[in-house]
């Protein structure tokens, strides 16, 4: 196709372009995020709007509502800045944070080893979330082991991909987001779908369209701490958010917000509330 000299020219050009891109991207991150937030008087937070209770669009006002949204609004209020909510997908949330498109992520992202390597987070979690499995009532899937060798739908970028593939031997099929994954489940392209438990529980409980579906397994997959994510090395932002999260637990605001969004606070959250409420904490 291309002669040797032109191929080398091409390789050099690509590398230069890549370095340029990396350099420009680096230049955008060089400012301390917290300074920029206060300077612009605005924080951009990425939230996931894949469905209640975490986030959805109110059809009447076309505005985002849900647990993630409430947390994001409160973070901004406590920092004394305006908030700009950006809807993200599991497939692009990490890129959006790395590129600087959002300053923080409140996007159903639990702590995993791989994520901790490339991003930072305030150590106190705001919830403990695990994965639930939704399947048809007559599919014959009763435990996590029943998915061995069968196709299971998840979102691209989900942290349930690894345990499902490695621990339970399932054939994982990842879609752009939770809505597409659930549609594929209804189209019989997988026997089950695995997403964050609170969303699936609400779906099965409330939505008449899903009356033939059930969550057969009572224990969740890898319940892990859900935290707010920031870019690696941003210690100021991390410390500011840590203070906010601890305050949420201390004042009990978090539990109240969960109840308002029809969520059942997990044992971990109740424990953290008790821990921070105790004098001297």
């Amino acid at each position, binding site marked *: *196709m291309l002669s040797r000299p032109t191929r080398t020219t091409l390789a050099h050009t*690509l*590398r230069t372009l*890549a*370095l340029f*891109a*990396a350099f420009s991207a680096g230049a955008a991150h060089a400012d301390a995020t917290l300074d920029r937030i206060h300077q612009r008087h605005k924080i951009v937070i990425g939230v996931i709007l894949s469905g209640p209770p975490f986030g959805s669009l109110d059809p009447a006002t076309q505005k985002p509502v849900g647990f993630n949204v409430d947390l994001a609004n409160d973070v901004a209020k406590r920092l004394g800045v305006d908030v700009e909510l950006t809807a993200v997908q*599991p*497939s692009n949330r*990490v*890129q959006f944070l*790395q590129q600087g498109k959002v300053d923080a992520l409140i996007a159903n992202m639990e702590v995993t080893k*791989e994520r901790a390597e*490339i991003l930072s987070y305030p150590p106190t979690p705001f919830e403990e979330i695990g994965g639930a499995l939704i399947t048809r009532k007559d599919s014959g899937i009763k435990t996590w082991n029943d998915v061995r060798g069968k196709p299971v*739908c998840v979102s*691209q*970028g989900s942290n349930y*991909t690894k345990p499902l*593939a490695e621990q339970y031997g399932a054939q994982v*099929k*990842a*879609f*752009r987001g939770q809505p*597409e994954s659930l*549609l*594929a489940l*209804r*189209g*019989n*392209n997988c026997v089950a779908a695995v997403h964050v438990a609170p969303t699936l529980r609400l779906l099965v409980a409330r939505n008449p369209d899903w009356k033939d579906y059930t969550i057969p397994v009572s224990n969740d997959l890898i319940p892990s701490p859900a935290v707010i994510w920031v870019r690696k090395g941003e210690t100021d932002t991390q410390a500011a958010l840590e203070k906010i999260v601890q305050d949420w637990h201390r004042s009990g605001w978090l539990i109240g917000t969960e109840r308002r969004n029809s969520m059942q606070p997990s044992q971990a959250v109740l424990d953290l509330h008790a821990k921070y409420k105790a004098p001297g904490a």
Partner: protein
Amino acid sequence: MSAPAQALVDAIGKTGLNYSFVLAPDELASFLHGMLVTLELSLVTALGSLAAGVVLAAMLTSPRAALARPARVFVEVTRNTPTLVQLFCAFLVVNMLISEALRNLGGNPLTPFIWSAIVISLHKAAFHAEALRAGIEAVPRATLEAAQSLGYSRRQRLWEVQLPLALRFALPTLVNNMVDLVKMTTVASAIAVGDITYASIMIWTQRDNVLELMILILLFFGALTFAVNRAGQWLEIRLRMPGYGH
């Protein structure tokens, strides 16, 4: 394999490109499998679209309105709507309806791969059909009349006179369409067919090494389209008829 591979990855790593995913056996396997699936899908859709294109072209040039009109409507709708939207309509909507209907009869056997193959083949078939139709209509009338006077039926005329000449006339356009087809197989990644794009997405959402994977994908498709172009050129030379066209 790991020691020289590790050395290579480290050497490339000095330029700032992170290829460490090659050292993880499951990720490397899924990437290689992705390449294989892309090749499979390209081959299946190439043959499928040609077959469907010939049928559509025959219908388009038929004097019977009952064949020509639906074919024309199909060609217009398929050419003027995006492949991704067609794929979603087929996979997320039609597939769901079929599943509901077939639920008691043993379930829906159509996999995402089959749906991608069907949608992409039909989409490109519309373009092939237009090119072949132009080729069929370019056959000199004298040749057709001569064939008719020799007792060829309409079907024989189509199959033995018009199509071979139309194929040679439309070959450059068909080869261009095939190159487009190969590039179009990437949309299958949206419905979780494990092609090279999908495998790359799965890797970069965990490792954040988009640029490195992009380079590999671009090289792969560059090689593939080069091969298709070459095959087209070889075919053109083989099928050349002295005195006709070129």
